[in-house]
């Protein structure tokens, strides 16, 4: 390859989960990459070479062409060579443990997405509004019950969106804690506080081992639910998925289980991270809290900016179906492209003062929910959940400040605040 290379010592840290415990360092790396190596190749020992895509425009150009950049031919997320080999061993030759909407390519992707897409369109959110407000008020009361200090991430933000989506799926409340644990194992396989007990982050195959365990845990959990909903369909999401047809047939088994995995994990984890980020921003910016209290109409803009600000999904990886010219470079057929959502959402070519939190940013065309046909199916639900919680909480939140250092998840895939200790006063 004669393509520009990124010095290994500069780029290798973004392949290491531990780096993401320090978001400032991550932003420093990507700021340098955008400036000096906006589209260049990373060769990190133990990994296949990856084009690192740092610019917003490039990321959008790639992700709106699912026919040219596949997500399912190779691992959809960053993985070591050893980890990818083990995936093939576990799956009988496939490149991903999961075959969810995230990994599927056209035409399968559209067929699977259409099973749930109509239920998550904006007009369908009206049916959820009252219930979400009830849950939001309950969580404000839970916050009040902490009596002035808590860890907003673990006590509130981890749980509120999980309760909403898992209720919609039809998961009994008694099982929500199990779903939270599996979610953390999946997205935080290397984090010392959230990882699967017994996992070994130093093992290059660990992500595959953990994800295979997570898949099997979900399979064991959901198989009886799938059977029950097929026998007696209800109005919940589990019934829609269990009885969903793809090209006129039942879903393929791994894809169906993966459908439940993605709803039960991605359906709340990124919202949790974004909500926790919002409180962290408020706790460090009392003027912002005062402004939102005085101008509640700014809350939707505040939510939108927290999504850009948090960008919990760090990366997805795609492989080129054919040679493709981009930013004066030739991405060859089969090459891997690492798409940095964190970087794109701080791209100076698109966002004025990208490192300033601005609830009045307009337009705020972040790609925190992705772009193209794979854009987050639950984006409207996530927005509604966050808007409703802040509408309920901000008028009562007289004061808030950090009560200790925040901590971020050690994950090169999905990373956000895992601890936001606060002192607060509610009215």
């Amino acid at each position, binding site marked *: 390859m004669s393509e520009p290379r990124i010095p290994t010592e500069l780029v290798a840290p973004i392949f290491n989960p531990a780096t993401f415990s320090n978001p400032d360092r991550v932003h420093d790396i990507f700021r340098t990459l955008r400036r000096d190596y906006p589209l260049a190749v990373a060769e990190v020992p133990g990994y296949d070479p990856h084009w690192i895509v740092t610019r917003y425009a490039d990321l959008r150009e790639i992700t*709106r062409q699912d026919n040219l950049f596949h997500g399912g031919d190779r691992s959809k997320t960053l993985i070591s060579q050893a980890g990818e080999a083990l995936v093939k061993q576990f799956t009988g030759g496939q490149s991903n443990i999961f075959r969810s909407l995230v990994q599927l390519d056209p035409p399968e992707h559209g067929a699977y997405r259409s099973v749930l*897409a109509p239920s*998550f*369109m904006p007009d369908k959110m009206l049916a959820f509004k009252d219930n979400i407000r009830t849950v939001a008020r309950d969580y404000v009361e839970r916050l009040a019950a902490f009596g002035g200090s808590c860890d907003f991430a673990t006590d509130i933000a981890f749980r509120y969106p999980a309760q909403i989506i898992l209720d919609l799926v039809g998961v009994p409340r008694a099982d929500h804690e199990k779903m939270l644990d599996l979610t953390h194992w999946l997205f935080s396989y290397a984090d010392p506080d959230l990882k699967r007990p017994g996992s070994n982050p130093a093992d290059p195959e660990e992500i595959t081992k953990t994800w295979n365990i997570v898949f099997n845990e979900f399979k064991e959990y959901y198989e009886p639910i799938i059977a029950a909903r097929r026998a007696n369909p209800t109005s919940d999401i589990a019934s829609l998925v269990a009885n969903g047809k793809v090209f006129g047939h039942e879903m393929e088994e791994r894809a169906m289980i993966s459908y439940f995995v993605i709803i039960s994990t991605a359906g709340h984890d990124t919202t949790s991270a974004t909500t926790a980020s919002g409180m962290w921003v408020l706790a460090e910016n009392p003027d912002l809290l005062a402004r939102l209290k005085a101008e509640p109409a700014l809350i939707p803009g505040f939510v939108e900016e927290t999504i850009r600000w948090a960008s919990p999904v760090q990366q997805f990886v795609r492989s080129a179906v054919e040679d493709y010219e981009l930013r004066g470079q030739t991405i060859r057929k089969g090459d891997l492209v690492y798409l940095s959502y964190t970087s794109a959402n701080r791209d100076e070519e698109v966002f004025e003062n990208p490192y300033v939190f601005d609830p009045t940013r307009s337009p705020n065309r972040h790609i925190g929910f992705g772009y*193209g046909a794979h*854009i987050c199916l639950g984006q409207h639900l996530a927005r509604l959940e966050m808007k409703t919680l802040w509408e309920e909480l901000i008028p009562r939140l007289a004061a808030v400040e950090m009560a200790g250092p925040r901590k971020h998840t050690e994950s090169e895939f999905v990373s956000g605040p895992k601890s936001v200790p606060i002192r607060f006063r509610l009215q």
Partner: protein
Amino acid sequence: MAEYKRYRCTTCGTEYDEAKGWPEEGIPPGTRFADLPDDWICPVCGTDKRFYEEIVD
């Protein structure tokens, strides 16, 4: 004059309202969906114009 119509992106749910246009995208109010360029894409998710559907209330 025919009533203005609304169209929805089948991928992300974004609505295009002919009455409002999309001024921040340079599309003045009153612009018919049919008059948008063929290579127009959803400003939010990048989906092709052909995957927008008319909203029938």
